[in-house]
């Protein structure tokens, strides 16, 4: 950055001399010498002329601005002035109804304008701080709740998956007595399906398929899936737990615990349901 010592002393003298002249602080002799020096030195003359233009233009332009300001002040009333101040200090003011709502002579302009007016003793500031504190606390609390909720969900999910793994192999497929080659095909199909349940970690397709079969097996009329009803239900509950669909798993287990055709399935379903609840 430029320091004062860096300024050439001759240049400073030149500028100061021109300024002295432009302020009318030179006596006649000094003025004559100054003008003569400008006559003799083109560089100095150019600098002095430029400064004279600057001062003259500033006088003209500044006076024009001040005259405009005077006119502007004369053409607005006190409430307008209050609005102007409020806008400068606080930004745009929404509407100006508050400006006329109070006695202007008694109130300072910003208070009259009704925008960001500080009450005596910094009352507004205190409110602002309180609000800031309140919203900060609220945000922190919300963040804590979200983190806690997320953590709990994760723990629940892990626990459900662990229970699913633990109970997945509780039953080997024990179909009802077969009635021919059609039953054998069905048995193979069910066996493959249940093997998938033991093998796959998460699968929405598998859950959808088992849900469909579970509905078929629960129908009042006998069908190919009726003998496998308990196993379909059991495997559906396991898949639901792996897919973190605890509600659906509990729903199926509740049915199994009361209506499964095997005592073992009923007992295990009740046991698993108790652990889940």
């Amino acid at each position: 950055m430029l320091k004062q010592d860096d300024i050439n002393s001759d240049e400073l003298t030149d500028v100061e001399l021109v300024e002295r002249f432009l302020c009318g602080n030179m006596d006649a002799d000094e003025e004559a010498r100054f003008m003569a020096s400008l006559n003799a030195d083109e560089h100095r003359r150019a600098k002095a002329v430029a400064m004279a233009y600057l001062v003259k233009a500033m006088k003209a332009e500044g006076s024009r601005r001040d005259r405009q300001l005077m006119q502007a002040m004369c053409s607005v009333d006190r409430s307008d002035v209050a609005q102007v101040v409020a806008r400068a200090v606080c930004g745009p003011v929404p509407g100006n109804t508050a400006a006329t709502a109070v006695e202007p002579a008694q109130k300072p302009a910003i208070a009259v304008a009704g925008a960001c007016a500080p009450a005596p003793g910094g009352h507004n500031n205190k409110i602002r701080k309180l609000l800031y504190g309140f919203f900060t606390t609220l945000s922190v609390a919300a963040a804590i709740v979200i983190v806690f909720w997320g953590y709990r969900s994760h723990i629940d999910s892990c626990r459900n998956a662990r229970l699913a793994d633990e109970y997945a192999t509780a039953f080997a497929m024990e179909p009802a007595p077969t009635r021919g080659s059609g039953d054998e095909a069905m048995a193979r199909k069910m066996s493959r399906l249940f093997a998938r349940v033991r093998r796959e970690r998460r699968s929405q397709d598998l859950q959808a398929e088992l849900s469909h079969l579970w509905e078929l097996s629960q129908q009042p009329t006998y069908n190919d899936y009726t003998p496998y009803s308990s196993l379909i239900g059991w495997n559906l509950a396991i898949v639901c737990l792996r897919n973190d669909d605890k509600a659906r798993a509990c729903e199926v287990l509740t049915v199994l615990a009361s209506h499964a055709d095997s005592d073992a399935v009923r007992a295990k379903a009740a046991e698993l349901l108790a652990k889940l609840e």
Partner: protein
Amino acid sequence: MTSQSPELSRQLLDKFAKKEWPVAQSWLSRVYGLDVHDCEDIFQEAFIVLWTHLRQDRFDIHHDKAGSYFLSICKKKAQEAMRKKQRIVPVPDDVLAAQEFSEAKSDQLLLTFEPEASLREKKETMVRQMLRQMPEPCNRILWAFYFESVSMQEMAELYGYASAATVKVIKHRCLEKFGKWFSERFKTMFS
């Protein structure tokens, strides 16, 4: 005096208030140790006083400059506030006039060295146009020094510069830039 539309008036006043508020706030808080709410109160009271003075013709357009006049009102209001709070602070020098630049002297110099009237007018118009777009901090410093006659020390206090010497350096640099612009502009124009 011709009247202007209320909308234009409000725009002009907005511009003036927005220009003066940061200067006044920074100056009042630095020199008088006032908080932002006190600064707001003083600013609004000073603005009402300026409005009253302008309407009552107590402001002399030939002598007073609106910017420094307004800041001197702010200063008086700040001193009143200090008295009410029974706090004593060193009183800074008057914001108004250190040395007044004379338009007549500028005319004298220009008439001597730039005798052609049309050329003078053309150059003056261009300089006035340039003044409307002058960047900061030159805009602030040169206007304060050459138009509002604020001293270097006062500028340092008003605008928060370290010292009068710092302001002097900035002003020098701004004058150099102006001189360069002036010579290049008119060399191109008349070559």
